[in-house]
C-alpha cells in the first residue's frame, strides 16, 4: 500500500507540475515589466522573525538531506529532524522518500571531499537554525528525494532517467537545482527580518548563510563550466545544457518574474536566472555568477516564488508537492501569489 500511495503521490505531483507549466508562457508575457524579483512582504497577514527563520530551516532540511545522502548514503540524524524539546507548534515530523537516494557512485577522493564539505555545511545550517530558534524550531517536513525524476521529465526537452546519485556530473545537476534557489531565497528573506531581529543578530546570520549558499553555488557553477570547457563542447559535456534547462524551468516557476534566463549577450529583460556559457576562447567570459546583466547584482525571490520552485508548480494557492509532498512546515507554505 505504501508503495502504491507513493506512486500515486508522485503521479499527482507530476501532473500538477506539468499542468502548471502549460500556463507559464502566458504569464511570462506580462512579466516583462515586472521588477527584478526583489522581495516584497508576503501577503500572509502577519509573521514573526521566527517564521522567516523557519522558512529558511525548511529549505535547509531539504538541502541537508540531499547532500547527506549523496555524501554518505545516510540522512540527517534524528536529533536534527525531530521537533525540539518544548516545541508547542502544530507541525509534525515528516519522513524522507528516498527514491534513488544513495551515496553518489564513482566519486574520486577529491570529489568525495567536496561532497563531504557541502553536506557538513548544510547539516550545520540545520543545527544552527534549530539552535537559534530553540523550542520554536519546526520539525523536518516530509521530503521527497524521488522528485528529481519527475522534475527532469518537465525539462525542455525532457530528460529521462535523471538520477542525481548516479554520478558526479548528475550530482552537480541535482545540486544545481537547489543552490541558486537558496541564494535567492535568503536574498528575498533578509529584508523581511524586523528591526528587533536585526538587533538580535538574525539579519547578519541570514546574510552569512546567504554568502555560504553563494559559495556553494559558485562551486557548482564553476565545476560544471570547467568540466564543459575541458570536454571541449556542449555535445561532449551535455550536463551544461541540462543545467540551463533547469534554469529555464526555475525561471518559469518564478511567478511574477518568469522571464526566460539570460544568455550573455542578452536583452535587458528582467529575469531571475543567468544561463551558464561555454566560452570557446579565454577572451570570452564565463557566466559563473547568477546575476543581472545590467549591474551584476544577485537575484532575490519571494517566499512564494521559492515555494513555487520547490513544489514544482506555478499555480497560485498550491500548498504542497514536488520536494515537499505535504508542504513545508511554514506559515508561508500555501502560495498566495
Amino acid at each position, binding site marked *: 500500500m505504501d508503495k502504491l500511495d507513493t506512486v500515486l503521490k508522485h503521479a499527482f505531483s507530476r501532473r500538477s507540475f506539468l499542468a502548471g507549466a502549460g500556463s507559464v508562457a502566458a504569464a511570462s508575457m506580462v512579466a516583462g515589466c515586472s521588477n527584478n524579483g526583489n522581495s516584497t512582504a508576503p501577503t500572509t497577514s502577519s509573521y514573526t522573525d521566527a517564521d522567516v527563520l523557519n522558512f529558511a530551516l525548511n529549505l535547509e532540511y531539504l538541502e541537508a538531506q540531499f547532500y547527506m545522502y549523496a555524501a554518505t548514503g545516510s540522512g540527517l540524524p534524528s536529533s536534527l529532524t525531530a521537533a525540539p524539546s518544548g516545541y508547542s507548534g502544530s507541525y509534525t515530523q515528516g519522513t524522507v522518500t528516498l527514491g534513488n537516494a544513495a551515496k553518489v557512485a564513482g566519486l574520486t577522493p577529491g570529489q568525495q571531499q567536496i561532497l563531504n564539505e557541502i553536506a557538513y555545511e548544510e547539516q550545520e545550517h540545520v543545527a544552527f537554525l534549530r539552535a537559534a530558534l530553540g523550542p520554536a524550531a519546526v520539525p523536518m517536513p516530509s521530503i521527497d528525494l524521488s522528485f528529481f525524476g519527475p522534475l527532469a521529465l518537465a525539462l525542455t526537452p525532457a530528460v529521462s532517467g535523471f538520477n542525481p546519485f548516479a554520478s558526479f556530473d548528475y550530482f552537480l545537476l541535482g545540486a544545481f537545482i537547489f543552490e541558486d534557489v537558496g541564494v535567492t531565497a535568503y536574498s528575498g528573506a533578509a529584508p523581511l527580518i524586523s528591526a528587533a531581529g536585526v*538587533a538580535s543578530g538574525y539579519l547578519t546570520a541570514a546574510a552569512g548563510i546567504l554568502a555560504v549558499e553563494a559559495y556553494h553555488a559558485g*562551486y557548482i557553477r564553476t565545476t560544471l563550466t570547467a568540466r564543459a570547457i575541458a570536454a571541449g563542447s556542449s555535445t561532449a559535456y551535455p550536463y551544461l545544457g541540462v543545467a540551463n534547462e533547469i534554469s529555464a524551468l526555475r525561471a518559469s516557476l518564478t511567478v511574477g518574474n518568469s522571464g526566460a534566463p539570460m544568455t550573455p549577450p542578452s536583452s535587458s529583460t528582467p529575469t531571475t536566472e543567468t544561463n551558464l556559457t561555454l566560452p570557446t576562447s579565454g577572451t570570452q567570459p564565463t557566466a559563473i555568477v547568477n546575476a543581472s546583466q545590467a549591474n551584476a547584482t544577485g537575484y532575490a525571490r519571494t517566499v512564494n516564488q521559492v515555494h513555487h520552485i520547490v513544489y514544482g508548480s506555478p499555480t497560485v494557492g498550491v500548498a504542497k508537492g514536488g520536494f515537499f509532498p505535504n508542504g513545508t512546515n511554514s506559515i508561508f507554505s500555501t502560495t498566495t501569489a
Partner: protein
Amino acid sequence: MATQETQILDDIIVAGRRKMLALGGSALAGMVLGTAVPKAAAQSATYSDSDILNFALNLEYLEANFYYMAAFGTTINVPNAASMAAFIAAGGSSAQAAMPIPITITGGGVGTPGTVTGGSKVIFGATGTAVQSYATETAIEEGKHVVLLQNALGSLAVNQPAINIAAGNGGTGTGLSGAFGILANAAGIPGGNAFSPYASDQNFLVGAYVFEDVGVTAYHGAASLITMSANLSAAASILAVEAYHAGLVRTTINALDPTATTIGGYTQKISSLRASLALAASPTTLTGAAANPYDTNPDDYGTPTTSVTLAGVTGNTATQITDADRTNVIAFSRNTNQVLNIVTGGGKVNGTTVNPTATGVFFPNGLNAGSNGFK
C-alpha cells in the same frame, strides 16, 4: 511581528537606528565602531548609508582595476579593444547603452582623485583557457559594481583613490615595493617579495584570492549597518556576487592544487595574515567579547582540507571551498576597521593607536570618504 503596516513602522524604527548607534546604546555599535576603539567611534558616530556605500565603492574601485588590468591590461577608465569586446560579450548591449564606457573614476567628486600604479595583463594559458574566461567575467562584473554604486550615490559618490596593484619588486625592508609583493612577503609565500599576480594563471588566482573573501566579509559586516531597505537589498545582492566570485576562485585553486602544496597552501598563508590583521583591528575578539558573533578568531581559512563530522561520524575529510566559521558555517563578518587593516596592511589600527586615515599597501594615500566616512 511584521504586518504590512508594522513593516512601514519597522522601516522608520530601523532608520532611527543610526541615532542609537551614535549614542552607543546598541550592541550593534560594537560591530562597526569597536567598543575598545573609541577614536574610531568618534570618527564614525554619525555615519549614513552613503558612507557605507562609499566604503564599498573604494573596495570596488580596487577590485575592478585589478581584474581589468589582469584580464585586459588596462584600467577601468581607459578602454581597449579587449575590454570593449568582453563588455559586449558579457551582455553589454542596448541594456547597457546608458552605462558609461570608459567607467568614470571621478564619481560624484568627493575626495582626491587618484591613479592606478602597477599591474599588467596576466600571462594566461598555462592551465588552459578557463582561468582567462573567469578573469574576463569577473572584471566586467566588478566594473558594473563600480557603476552601480556610483549611480546609487550620485553626487555623494567618492572619486577613485590612489590604488597600488603592483607586483613585488623583489626588494627587502624599505626597498620592498609593490602591493602584492608586500602582502605576499608578509604572508610568508616563498619568494613573496617578488610575487606577481600577473605572471601566470595560478598566480592570478592567488591575487584574486586576496580580495574576494575580504569583499564577502566587508559586505556582510555592512549589511546590518544599512538603514534603507532598498540599500540593504542592494548590499545583499552584491554580497551574493562576491561570494560567487570567491567560490569560483577557491574552487579553481582547489581543482589545480587539491593537495594544497603550492597555491592551495598559499591560500592558508594569506588567510592567516588576513585573520591576524583583522584581529589587530578588533581586540575584543581576544577576550571572547566580540559584539558580532561572526567576528571570531581566526576569521579566515584557506582551501586545505579539514575533517568534519557527518551525522555523528567523525573523520570525514572535506575541502574548504567555503570560507566560514567551522561550527555554524556562517560566513565571517568584518567591521570597517578590520577591512581597512587588511587592505592597508595594518594601516588603521596598530596596537592602541587608531589612525584617522589608514594608508598603505593597496591604498597608498588612503580611501576617499565623506566627512563622517570610513577611511
